[in-house]
């Protein structure tokens, strides 16, 4: 028992959880932006996967991981745009379109991986993102260990969390955006350009997932593997809900999931008398419990999942 407590309260677990949380946080905030404009986004999973693939491709082609990240953002934007086309313009059922998008991207990335690298399992190794040590912060005892040395996407994640919150809740643009998800008709009457904001929001959601995907492949392992996102997009959607459709909440929920995952990995290494399969289940069970608990007391944007024809 004391061994377990040691792992739980170990600084390394907390710092590992920050790293594991990155793709979840980016995707969960992507979820916030699309659900706040009324679009249920199950496509987060496919967007993450597309981002992870594009990042490795970019780094493979140029040898520069930062170009990989840019390519992932670009591809994320395109995927977000396609998802927006299907859900907004072609009025597809959001849930069905999201799942279709995920299957499409799973197939496309696995296919391209074989065409480009000739292997169905994993891609070749590419140059990954290196860690940047922040001089002053890294020398502070605990904080230095947690925040002192990470790659650029981790720092960017913190910036995105705070900026998204400010944009959504402290600017007129954010207010307009939120009105669309709550009451599109009112937004329309007020003269808000609904479609423009919805497209922007979904494309931004794709860009964020691109960043999350890039972290999965270039920040963690330096290669791409089949179905690399492994359900993280769905977990991110749950984190967005648990976080109350709020970037700060989404961050907190994602960190909770990531912490469980970090714990799970470290417990496997401990050789406890608990079978690994059971330990591996914990993050999934937690997602279900959290979602069930969260839905009782929180309320989604009122027009979520509904199609609204704009007046112009």
């Amino acid at each position, binding site marked *: 028992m004391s061994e377990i407590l040691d792992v739980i309260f170990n600084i390394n677990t907390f710092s590992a959880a920050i790293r594991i949380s990155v793709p979840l946080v980016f995707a969960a905030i992507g979820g916030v932006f699309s659900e706040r404009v009324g679009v249920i986004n199950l496509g987060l999973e496919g967007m993450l996967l597309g981002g992870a693939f594009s990042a490795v491709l970019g780094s493979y082609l140029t040898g520069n991981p930062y170009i990989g990240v840019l390519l992932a953002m670009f591809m994320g934007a395109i995927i977000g745009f396609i998802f927006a086309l299907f859900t907004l313009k072609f009025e597809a059922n959001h849930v069905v379109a999201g799942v279709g998008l995920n*299957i499409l991207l799973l*197939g496309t990335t696995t296919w391209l991986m074989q065409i480009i690298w000739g292997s169905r399992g994993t891609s070749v190794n590419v140059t990954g993102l290196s860690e940047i040590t922040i001089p002053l912060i890294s020398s502070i005892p605990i904080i230095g260990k947690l925040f002192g040395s990470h790659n650029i996407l981790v720092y960017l994640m913190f910036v995105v969390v705070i900026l998204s919150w400010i944009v959504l809740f402290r600017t007129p643009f954010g207010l307009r955006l939120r009105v669309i998800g709550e009451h599109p008709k009112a937004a329309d009457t007020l003269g808000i350009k609904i479609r423009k904001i919805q497209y922007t929001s979904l494309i931004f959601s794709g860009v964020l997932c691109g960043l999350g995907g890039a972290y999965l492949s270039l920040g963690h392992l330096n290669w791409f593997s089949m179905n690399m996102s492994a359900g993280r997009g769905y977990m991110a959607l749950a984190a967005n809900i648990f976080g109350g459709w709020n970037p700060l909440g989404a961050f907190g929920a994602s960190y909770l999931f990531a912490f469980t995952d970090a714990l799970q990995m470290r417990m496997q290494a401990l050789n406890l008398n608990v079978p690994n399969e059971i330990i591996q289940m914990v993050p999934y069970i937690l*997602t279900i419990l959290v979602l069930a608990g969260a839905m009782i007391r929180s309320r989604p944007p009122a027009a979520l999942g509904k199609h609204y024809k704009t007046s112009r």
Partner: protein
Amino acid sequence: MLKRLKKYSDLGYSLIAIILAFAIGALLIYLSGLNVGKAYSALFNGAFGSLFNFTQTLMNTIPLIFTGLAVAIGFKSGLFNIGGEGQMYLGAFVTAITAIYLSFLPSIILIPLVLLAGGLAGSAWSFIPGYLKTRTGAHEVVTTIMMNYIGILATSFLLLRYFQETGPIPQTVFIPESARLPELIEFSRLTWAIFIAVFVVILCDIFYKRTNLGYKIQTVGKNSSAAEYAGISSDKMMVLSMMISGFMAGLAGATIVMGVLHRFITNFSPGYGFTGIAVAVLGRNKPVGVLFAALLFGALQTGGITMQLFAKIPMDLMVVIQGLVILFVATPVLIKKLLRK
């Protein structure tokens, strides 16, 4: 008259969606510098080229009929069950264990009994997301996905811990002969399961068209507040619907164990549960539609292997086509726009 017209247009949209998906698939093959004609002819030959190939197509069609029905049945009550994969693993596992432990029973009792056990195991697994949805509002798509991971881990845990055959491979011992479904054609692994599948399709069709309960479930799916107003408990109907849905996915696992593998093996599924989504969407959630859509995807699964072997085209192209079919079928507006031009 209008109704008939709508029926035809549904079929028309589905066909156009398939054609569009294959056209984009062809473009992808072409852009990859591979031969489109060679790819698609290998695909067709692999699926229908000989009697043996056709039996393999039918063999792959069986689980897809069940997983497709599972998704379609969920949709009928307005729920999207993408937990077919996990429910199928539970079904397969419980089927194998029941068959092994009750091997003393005669075939005529054992076969229906293990089928039922497999189906119920799937139901038990789908009950959880159904219950959580009605009690807490937790979105079933997320919970069923999580239940997939948990189910696959749980069955492999139970297998490794308690039921593994001695040896390095994570599998159970063979189930007794008396619990196996007889083959239709020797060495084809195509069994009587195909008739069970067709029978279940007919039952479902009757259930939704002719029974009171089936009608109630569909009312909930179309308009749950109207259903409540009419005195139908939408919560009850949703949970029930979810359990019937899981039962179907469980049957997919049961028939694979009883007809094809004759044991439970970890990671036995090439994603039948997920392909079931494409099957249901393409089949417009109608049992008979599911039957034909399952045949199409069964053919793609089988032909895809030949295509990979002889035309050197990765068979993941089939997954691409599945995704495209789902997207296109989901957007009749897009197809209408295309037709108008």
